[in-house]
């Protein structure tokens, strides 16, 4: 095989590899939608963040409008502080409330924003005042068992 053909074939191989990397970065990992400047950050304090994870979606009316940028612990108020990165195109009233919900019964947790009625908009680095914590399934089950037990005890007393 002459040298030129060889060079062309190796060049094709390298181009194929580069295309594969581009495909993985753009199509599988969505590099194109990674944006560093088109979001603004607000914080929300929760008594319990439950299983919320970094990069979990922030949704309003079921539509994803942003992501969780970080979750830290505030050791003054003993609360979890979630930083929300919201798409700059979406404005929310200043009295918007945030709650942690779960997709499906056992799915991943996300933050739902419910817009308030304030005339002013939520500004970057504002904090969301009204929040509702994650529902911890174990606590719910505990409460259920406790109330069942109490009910059962009452019935026993009634039967006597």
């Amino acid at each position, binding site marked *: 095989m002459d040298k030129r053909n*060889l060079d062309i074939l190796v060049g094709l*191989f390298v181009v194929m590899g580069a295309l594969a990397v581009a495909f993985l970065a753009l199509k599988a*990992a969505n590099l194109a939608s990674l944006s560093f400047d088109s979001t603004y950050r607000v914080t929300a304090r929760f008594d319990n963040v439950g299983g919320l994870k970094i990069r979990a979606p922030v949704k309003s009316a079921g539509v994803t409008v942003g992501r969780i940028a970080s979750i830290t612990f505030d050791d003054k108020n003993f609360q979890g502080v979630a930083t929300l990165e919201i798409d700059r195109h979406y404005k929310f009233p200043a009295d918007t409330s945030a709650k942690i919900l779960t997709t499906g019964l056992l799915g991943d947790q996300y933050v739902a924003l419910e817009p308030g009625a304030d005339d002013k908009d939520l500004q970057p680095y504002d904090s969301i005042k009204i929040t509702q914590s994650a529902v911890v399934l174990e606590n719910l089950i505990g409460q259920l068992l406790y109330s069942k037990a109490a009910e059962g005890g009452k019935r026993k007393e009634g039967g006597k």
Partner: protein
Amino acid sequence: MNAVADLLAALGARALRLLWSLGHASLFFWELVRFTPAALRRFDLSVVQIYAIGNLSLVIIITSGAAVGGVLGLQAYYALDRYGAAEQVGLLVALSLLRELGPVLTALLFAGRAGTSLTAEIGLMKAGEQLAAMEMMAVDPRGRVLAPRFVAGIVSVPLLSAIFSAVGVAGAKLIGIDSAAFWSQMQDGVDVFKDVGNGMVKTVVFGVATTFVALYTGYESDATPEGVAQATTRTVVISSVAVLVLDFLLTSLMFSTRP
């Protein structure tokens, strides 16, 4: 008493041999690295080798990638569909391919397809005294023969691995999951730097390891037909074990502290 001393002596000799071969291999590695800039200056030597070990490995890499992606997608679908999470198939396949299967399987296939041919070629060159003839002409065979192959391996393995993962993802797509959910779930969960980037780092490490093992065993093979045969076998065994051990170490470094 004598038996115990014999045992101890055998153990000591074995330990010393192991240490010696480790030291010898690392010296050889540094020699290769030292010759790499020269090999890069004469890149046409490497291009021939990239064709031999990269281009000619494409068929097996693409076939295996498509098969692994398709099978992984199918099995993930059966399991995830029970929990109504069939749309997560794309994410599962992409993460397994990018982080583990793509780099590791590519390196194993590369060791079998290209590493063996490197070892056999160099072993036969040594057996035919071609390497000795080069030394007679004051040409260092490590610079002229080994370094271009080393460069070619380091270039080829990451490219092959990227092709493997891309074909695998496409293969998983073929099993017929809803297209929008497949891609959106994948894009939600796959991070460019953490997953794609770390995967590429792995493939570079594996490329260095498999090519180095192939070259070293070939260069150190006994100059007999049996010696070349044993060296070829050793290439596959040592590279495979090295890749699996390195993969475990790299995975525990890269992916263990993630939330």
